[in-house]
């Protein structure tokens, strides 16, 4: 298993995680690193959870078993916590801290957990937590929708993936819309810097 890195990305439909995984796949293709990925996005546009699994390296499987993610990236804190079953005690977890409560909370069918408690639980159970307000950083980049690129920046900074910032930026140039490229690159850098400061 040593030559393989397993990444799970969880997000809420509409947060742009399919673009993020697309950029990573493109970067791996450019870097000549074998990659497979699998996505469950049947109801993404109806506000459900979207999960992407990416396997870099020698393994053949396109999906990741419970407890076997090397790194988990969560675009929404409660969803990050929900995906902890994918992690083991060594897993590196990167999460956005800006909550997006599901509508079930608004109609009184559930309680949204406390953000500090979420962080504490993740920190206690996994190898390392990198938590940042990616939504705020996206806003700072000039494009609120660049949350995905902020988290990519943090992910690459963590050094868990066999990809460099330059490779990912190159992939962003081919995969993301020209009009947003500048803000996307900026968002990536902001995420990278924020993770470095943690």
């Amino acid at each position: 298993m040593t030559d393989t890195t397993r990444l799970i990305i969880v997000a809420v439909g509409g947060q742009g995680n399919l673009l993020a995984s697309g950029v990573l796949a493109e970067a791996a293709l450019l870097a000549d690193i074998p990659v497979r990925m699998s996505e469950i996005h049947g109801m993404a546009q109806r506000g459900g959870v979207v999960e992407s699994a990416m396997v870099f390296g020698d393994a053949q499987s396109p999906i990741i078993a419970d407890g076997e993610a090397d790194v988990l990236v969560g675009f929404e804190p409660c969803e990050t916590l929900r995906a902890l079953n994918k992690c083991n005690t060594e897993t590196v977890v990167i999460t956005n801290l800006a909550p997006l409560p599901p509508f079930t909370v608004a109609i009184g069918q559930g309680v949204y957990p406390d953000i500090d408690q979420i962080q504490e639980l993740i920190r206690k159970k996994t190898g390392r937590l990198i938590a940042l307000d990616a939504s705020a950083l996206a806003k700072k980049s000039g494009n609120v929708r660049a949350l995905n690129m902020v988290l990519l920046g943090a992910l690459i900074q963590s050094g868990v993936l066999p990809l460099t910032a330059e490779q990912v930026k190159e992939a962003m140039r081919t995969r993301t819309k020209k009009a947003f490229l500048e803000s996307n690159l900026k968002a990536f850098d902001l995420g990278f810097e924020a993770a470095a400061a943690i």
Partner: protein
Amino acid sequence: MHKLLTDQPGKKMMLLGNEAIARGAIEAGVAVATTYPGTPSSEISLNLFQMSQESDLFFEYSTNEKVSMEVAAAAANAGVRAMCMMKHVGLNVAADVLMTLAYVGVKAGMVVVTADDPFMFSSQNEQDNRFYGKLSGLPVLEPSSVDEARRMTAYAFELSEQLGEPVILRTTTRINHSSGIVELDKIMPPKTKGDFTKDPMNQVPVPAVARKLHVKLLENWHKARDIAETSDFNIIDGKGPGGIICNGVSYTYVTDAVGELDLGDRVRVLRLGLSHPMPEKMIKDFLAASDKVLIVEEGEPVMEEAVKAFAQEAGLTLPIRGKAEDLFSRLYEFNPGMVRQCVARFFDVPYTPPEVPDLSDIPPLPNRPPNLCAGCSHRATYLEIKKAVAELGLDTIYPTDIGCYTLGMLPPLSMADFLLCMGSSAGTPGGFAVATDKKVISFIGDSTFFHSGIPGLVNAVFNNHNHTLVILDNGITAMTGHQPNPGVDMSVFNLQGYGRISIEKVVEALGVQKIVKIKPFKLAKSIEAIKEALSYEGVSVIISEEPCALFAQAYKLKKKRAFYISDACKNHRDCINQLACPAFYIENERVHIDEVACVGCAVCAQICPENAIRPVKKAG
């Protein structure tokens, strides 16, 4: 140019499994492609639809899977390569065609793609369509990876021509919705016109002909089995006395497990890619050289039962195991971890899974089920039906159907009581109406109505069932990603040359005596009209017309006009509690509307007792 039309053999591309299948068909020179959309197959047809607009390919969204297979079968009998694709349950709809098409056969290559959905990520059952290979006698190909999906699709056309019968390409969600690196092959230009040579003694299966054709089908089955014996898609890796037989995506899990457990010198792996008819001799030889064999297949024990039968015939008594309490389940999908664990257990090698954290102290998390979009017209219709039913004091049963509107099942709407399959909302009400004294109100979408709702409605009229059918006409096949259907105005897609069928005229022509049409965003008017239809004894139809909000936004069919909650709000929360529209959120114990999400359907504004919900004024 569409990326899948790139004519650069050897070029590497990251493709979705479904894109790879579409590409494989293009490489094989497919000329006619037909479908009824269904997850997880939908992107195959979406890509072919797009490519048909810039190439010689003929593509159609057919009314249903049965018709789609008929169109493809006739094209293939006229000598042009054809493919039809559908989700697994779609093949049930087309099964009548398939079973006799197997007898009649084809003149040019024809591929039937069936996309199974183990774990039911987006399906109502997880039936194993490998049985259709056995049932029809047709060959089945099962890819294990994205690139192989491309190669196998292209090969399937050749195999079909070699045998003169259609070939089934069976995938699962994890192939359709996985992405991997694909190396492009050259594109064969399609032959778009053929000819039909009349040969009724072989193509009109009256009993005397069919008896002869069945003999031919069995001969073909033997030919196909011989091909499977030496097929490049049936492969053996590794060495040693242990054996694993597997198929599809499970092969990738097995390969990883054998590598990780260092079993390459102890265990041989037989992967069946051309999995029906099974290569009998190959399997018997494999068994004879093994001391024990593990069968790794998702779904039903299709291979396992056959392999056990082969062992019996060969007089072999080695242990052969697969589905068992301590090994594999018939339920859901597999994953690399559980396959690794079962392989370790079966071959008796030590294995410690990664240490997983104890999650027992995680507080219960709020669910995040998919929800009807903000401004979805279905939400409005459901609310109005509820209000009309309450005003009339009816005791109701709500059969529903397959589409976004099935999401109306969730509270607070709770508008779905019974569902079987596409079109069942038109047929099941008859049974409820005769077996109970309740008012039966059922829901069907426009696309589903055309797919298989019409016969149910014909039946209801003929047998005079007491039933109200609500046709939720949002002008598109929304759930699978906004595909056209026979009621859609194709100019929206900038396409000409299509017909368009009026649902209202169809319903009228079927002899429904009570038809009302509503515009669901007009609450009071709609409720009155609904009450009228519900009060009618016999078959009544309500047609609720309003474009799908997501589609309308994407194609700029409607102007967006967001609403906000003014200070007049007394915090009753009727809006959020009755509608659960995802544009609402609570902040500081007050209801707010997310202006980005709100499309301005104004339904909430019509139920607010304080008139507190108002349109946002444009600045300036």
